[in-house]
């Protein structure tokens, strides 16, 4: 048994020696979903069926998505590893590559390489309560994890999702928010910043940290996963701390600028750690020891 494993590893290593790690998979843009102003979700399928079948990843990992002629850009994989045959990414049109992506039509060819980075340790979360806290465009990296956990629902205890955006229009995955709201085994709280509500808005009004404080979720046997803009993260952690969460039980995913994704190009490091190799998933206990380079 061990010999076969060794042989396989040797073969994999030999393959890796020869293959060009910068060569992307060719992907077909299967479906485009408009999520919010400037925000789209792409469903991508592998051109080569075998590549698609052999492709595996875990929640938390990311990839380099490219438009040929424009370049590459980095996003987490937004679909769950439990949903096979495709991957999804959600992005806001901001710079050169995301603008080129936004201009693509269904059926277009694009590139993808990955998966890269570490993963959320969901096997260690069996039997625990999960508290997801996301802000704005940071729901996509968490959506992969949420669906992963919902597809393995019986492994976890209570699942709570708190999601906030600046205004109602900017909430992403509105159709899935409705789905989660209807599920009896999920507690969903949505909120928009004061002034961002519409007359029909039935959710909370307020920034994520005060809404979280009002919700006062129990910290016992609970893991919190926080994704959002730096300012939200900064003010959310003190609230979690007050609620009794230890830094070891609070996870987040960092998003520094990257080019290679494989620990070489030299720009995503936070102190001696590379977000692309040692992250993107970090606990707050780890972040406390890192310099503020993210």
């Amino acid at each position, binding site marked *: 048994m061990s010999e076969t494993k060794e042989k396989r590893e040797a073969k994999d290593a030999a393959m890796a020696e020869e293959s*060009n790690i910068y060569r992307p998979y060719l992907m077909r843009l299967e479906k485009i979903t408009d999520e919010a102003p400037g925000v789209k979700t792409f469903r991508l399928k592998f051109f080569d069926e075998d590549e698609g079948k052999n492709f595996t990843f875990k929640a938390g990992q990311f990839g380099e998505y490219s438009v040929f002629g424009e370049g590459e850009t980095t996003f987490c994989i937004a679909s769950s590893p439990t949903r096979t045959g495709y991957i999804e990414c959600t992005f806001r049109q*901001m710079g050169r590559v995301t603008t080129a992506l936004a201009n693509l039509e269904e059926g277009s060819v694009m590139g993808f390489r990955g998966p890269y980075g570490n993963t959320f340790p969901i096997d260690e979360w069996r039997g625990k309560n999960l508290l997801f806290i996301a802000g704005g465009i940071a729901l996509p990296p968490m959506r992969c994890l949420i669906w992963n956990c919902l597809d393995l629902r019986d492994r976890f205890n209570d699942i709570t999702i708190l999601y906030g955006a600046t205004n109602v229009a900017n909430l992403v995955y509105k159709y899935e928010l409705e789905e989660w709201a209807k599920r009896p085994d999920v507690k969903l709280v949505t909120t928009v910043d004061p002034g961002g509500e519409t007359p029909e808005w039935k959710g909370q009004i307020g920034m994520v940290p005060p809404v979280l404080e009002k919700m006062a979720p129990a910290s016992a046997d609970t893991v919190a996963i926080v994704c959002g803009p730096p300012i939200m993260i900064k003010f959310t952690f003190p609230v979690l701390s007050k609620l009794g969460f230890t830094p070891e039980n609070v996870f987040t995913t960092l998003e520094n600028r990257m080019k290679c994704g494989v620990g070489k*190009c030299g720009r995503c490091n936070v102190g*001696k750690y590379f977000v692309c190799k040692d992250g993107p998933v970090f606990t707050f206990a780890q972040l406390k020891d890192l310099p503020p380079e*993210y």
Partner: protein
Amino acid sequence: MTIEKRTLKKEAVGEFINRLRAGQWQVVAPKKKDKQVTFGEISGAEDICQDYVQTTQSAKGVLFPRVEELFRYQMQENGAQILEREGPPQGTVIFGLRPCDAAAVAPLAAVFTWDYPDAPFKKRLAQTAIVAISCHQADEYCFCTSVGGSPGDTRGSDILLTRLSGGDYLAEIVTEKGKRLVELAADLFTVAPKEEKEKNLARVEKRFDAKKLAEKLPGFFDSPVWIEQSLRCLGCGACAYVCPACVCFDIQDEGNEKRGRRLRCWDSCGFSQFTLHTSGHNPRSVQSQRWRQRLMHKFSYQPDRLDVVGCVGCGRCSRACPVDMNLLEHLIQIAEG
């Protein structure tokens, strides 16, 4: 293997170069170009310039070109094609570089081969042989001895030549690859000389201890020294572009929606846009943070993570700096601080 010693007569250098070229090796060596000495392909020993302390650019580009094609793409009616260059690159002998440049292969290889092996680099490395020449002169910018090297250091070389008093060379054959080069001209490599190597080497005083510096640096992260040292830094990136051990790169596309290529290009951690997020947020938004990153990466993070110092003490960064930021002086300040 144990190092084998031979003599290479000064008159035989030209013939050795000819034999290498006849053996299908491309030979790259220091050449005079206007007022600069820089590396380029040579057709004979007469092209080689040895009258210099340090070349402006190192020979890094042979292993890690300034701009390198990763692949070409071509759109088709139903899909696209990705084309990679086939076959290994041409075998190249880098001849006549300094031992510090030869030692710089180690930090490059450490970054390119840890974890994910980088095929473009590995292929070039496998096809490259290094014949270095020991330093018989040095200047005030040189500090190889402070970072583990020396003017006669054999690390990184396949063959190291040291010029002796009469002009002949002591040839130290360091690796199997070096041995294969010698086999192309075995008659030229005669019995080892009697003269000592040491007295033919430049003297470079050790100014600080890189190991002790690496231990000290983590405690310096919040020190005001970074601001003080970098106040005059222009963020021009010249230091990175002349560095034989800098690896940081960018990936860019060149072409249009129909055809083109994806390129890897040298980059510099000193540039303000290096870490700029598309949102406008920048984790290293001011020059002092970028200067700290440059030194920390080379003298703390790389020794810690990859067990290699990201500097060989060649002094090029200090010579090239338009505002005279002297790396050696700044390192001594921290080491003694």
